[in-house]
Structure formats: C-alpha cells, structure tokens
C-alpha cells in the first residue's frame, strides 16, 4: 500500500510560550501526523504531540463506540490498537487523536470526528492546555476531555485531583477552543494526503 504521506515533522523541543489563564491563539504543542504507515491493517496513523490501562482502554473504546456508526457493519469487530512510542504528557489525549485519525484512515463511517484535549490546573488556578509530563505531575488537577467535531459536545471526560465547578467550566471552554485547532489540523492533513494521491 503506497501513500505513506509524511507531514513535515519538525518537533520543537518544548519551547512554546506558556499560555495565560485564557491562552490566546493556539497554546497546544506542535503536532505531526503520519497516516497509512503500516501496510497490513486497513488503516493506521501515528500521532506525535509534544515531547495507564484497562481504564484508559475503556475510555477510548467508549468514545469510539459513541461516534462510530456500528449499525452499518453488523457482526463486525473493529479493533483499534494503540502503541505508545513515547510519552511526554497528555498521553490519553494523544491516544484519542491517534484513534480518530486511524478510524478515518480506515474509512470507518463515523457520525463525527473527535479529539482529545488535556488541561492542567496548578495550585494558583492557572490553566495550562496540553501539559508536559512534568507539568502534569506538579498540577493540582489534570482534566482530559474528548470533544466531538459537530457541536464540541463533551464525549468523554476523566479527571485527576480536586477542582471547583467554575474551574471545570473554564477548562471545558478552553478545551472547546483548542479543539478547533485540532480539527483544523485533521482537515489540513487529510487534504494534503488526498490532494497528492
């Protein structure tokens, strides 16, 4: 199978500006994606984003189940295999993004795309999107959300630590804004892939 399109993968070594409480612009780390890199499976993708197990599996599976139109493929099993190449924080969000891109690459019919965004709250309430492993460890709370592409509704959420209701709404709003960037990236990378082949 040809078509292993390599998107430019200049990985900035974690030197992005720290976002303020409501980070303007894109405060997510640089990401790159490569699709169709394995020949045997129907679809595959590798998702690099910046420099946990039955529970995590279940979260990813349930998120996929919510968007995949399973009724169109009865008596079929769709297996999503995720292999962690390196973990530099925000692992679950990266896994969700990879799973979505792989499902798109495989041509599985879905009712929406989804993306994962991680927020960290440190001790004085500052919001950080897409934290590194160090920031996650030092944070007071780490919230991971999966949002859908149609209405930015919350598909999945898992949180660690203590936080207030107002902080939750703040994180959710920030995640919804950040998800626009991720969805734009999906669209651009797919456009690049299909325009060349």
């Amino acid at each position, binding site marked *: 199978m040809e078509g292993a399109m390599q998107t430019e993968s200049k990985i900035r070594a974690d030197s992005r500006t720290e976002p303020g409480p409501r980070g303007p612009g894109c405060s997510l780390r640089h990401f790159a994606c490569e699709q169709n890199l394995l020949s045997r499976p129907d679809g595959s993708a590798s998702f690099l984003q910046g420099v946990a197990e039955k529970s995590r599996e279940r979260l990813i599976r349930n998120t996929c189940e919510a968007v995949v139109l399973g009724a169109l493929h009865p008596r079929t099993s769709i297996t999503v295999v995720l292999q962690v190449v390196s973990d530099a924080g925000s692992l679950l969000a990266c896994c969700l993004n990879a799973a979505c891109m792989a499902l798109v690459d495989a041509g599985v019919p879905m009712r929406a795309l989804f993306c994962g965004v991680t927020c960290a709250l440190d001790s004085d309430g500052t919001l950080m999107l897409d934290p590194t492993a160090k920031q996650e460890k030092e944070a007071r709370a780490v919230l991971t959300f999966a949002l859908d592409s149609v209405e930015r509704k919350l598909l999945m959420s898992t949180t660690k630590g203590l936080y207030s209701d107002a902080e939750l*709404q703040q994180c959710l709003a920030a995640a919804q804004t950040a998800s626009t960037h991720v969805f734009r990236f999906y669209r651009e990378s797919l456009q690049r892939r299909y325009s060349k082949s």
Partner: protein
Amino acid sequence: MSFRTVEPLEYYRRFLKENCRPDGRELGEFRTTTVNVGSIGTADGSSLVKLGNTTVICGIKAEFGAPPTDAPDKGYVVPNVDLSPLCSWRFRSGPPGEEAQVASQFIADVIENSQIIQKEDLCISSGKLAWVLYCDLICLNHDGNILDACTFALLAALKNVQLPEVTINEETALAEVNLKKKSYLNIRTHPVATSFAVFDDTLLIVDPTEEEEHLATGTLTVVMDEEGKLCCLHKPGGSGLTGAKLQDCMSRAVTRHKEVKKLMDEVFKSMKPK
C-alpha cells in the same frame, strides 16, 4: 406479549415523555437509600448500603505493612470491588472482569483525589511500619448505579473504622498492639458520587437502574465533596453533553451531597458510643 420485553426503549420513551420513569420516580429522583454501619464483627470497619435494589457491602481490614520507599511516611488504602455472579447474571466467576476493574480504579481515584484520609495518618513508624487498609466492596445485588453505592459504602465504612493504638517497643523493635485503646480515623472530606444516564443524547436521568443503564446512550458520574469541589468527573464515552447540561448535573450533585450527608449524620449519631 409484553411490550416492555419486545421494545424496551419505546416503552421507556413513553414514560420519559411524561417526565417520569416506570418505577414511578421523577427524572431527578434517587431511589430509597439505606445504610447500615458496623454489622461485620470481624472487620475493623464495615457498612452496607442499599440504593433501591442495588446492595453493596464494604468491609475494611487494617493490617501492617512497610511504607512505600518513595513515601516513607504514608500508609496504603487498597480498594477492591468484587462483582460476582451472585449479584447479576452478567458476571462469571474467576478473575475480575472489566467492569469490576474499572470500578476498583474509580474508587481508588476517588480516594486519591478527594484526600478522604491523609495517608500520613496511617503511618506508625516512618520508613518501617504503616497501616494498610484493605477495603473490600462486594456487590450483593446489581441493579444499576454501582459506583454511587460503592462510594457511599466506602465512606460509611471508613468512618466506622477503629484502629488500635500501636507502639514500637524500643528494645525489641516489635510493634505492640493495644486492642483496648482504639480510635477512629480522621475523615477529612466526604465525597459523594451522583450518577446520571443519558437517553437519546439529550435527556439526563439520575440514579439509573440496570435496565436504564443498558438502554442509555451514555453515563456520567460526578463525585463532589462538601465544599462543592469535584474529585472526579467520570464520563467514559457515550453521547455528547453541552456545558449547560453539565451545569445541571453539578447542581443535582450538590443536592445529593446534602441528602447523603444528612443520612450519614443520622446513622452515626444513632450509634451508641463504645
């Protein structure tokens, strides 16, 4: 013969249209909650919680253990949720299935995030000896909403735990346990879980029964402590929710916390001091 068996979802939709459920509850109403504390004599702390038909029993045993090397002044709290064929036809005997593992992980996260007890309180001698609290949550009847029942059972059992006084004999370096002098644990927060099921991507109902969980398109569990702080927002996939719907869930969780706290205070007040 029975419309309910043939078309369960349609059957439910007819009730939901009238803003109620087949068992007569409103959409935001919990089932009758009962709690019984201290019934297991062999455990250091125990509780039995019933949420309608869902029954969970929690037994806590305290044993000695060496503290972890990276945290020498902390003890352990080890939860384990057991879902056996006894409680529902869905489970088989053998190693814990996925639902049991996820529930155990959820309880472990709640303990960790809410800081319900300070792990430093469990330390007897820094680096050498600490208490390990094994919390076994056994489901006796699974009729939905297992997470709420387990969280409540754990909280009630922890409040019931009495640990004997332990002194380290300096000459023999052995621990001496004084069973006559027992003290309760210092429970710092009271996390209470409120679970919701999402129907048809829009309607939220509280405290789903097993049948409702099956028909639902998504579930959400909110764990809140008394100050309104969230320890856990567990939404394992399922249909999407807007921010406004989440806000409604939060307000319901706050009310539920008050109900549960009141019930627990009554129970502990009625227990005779030993």
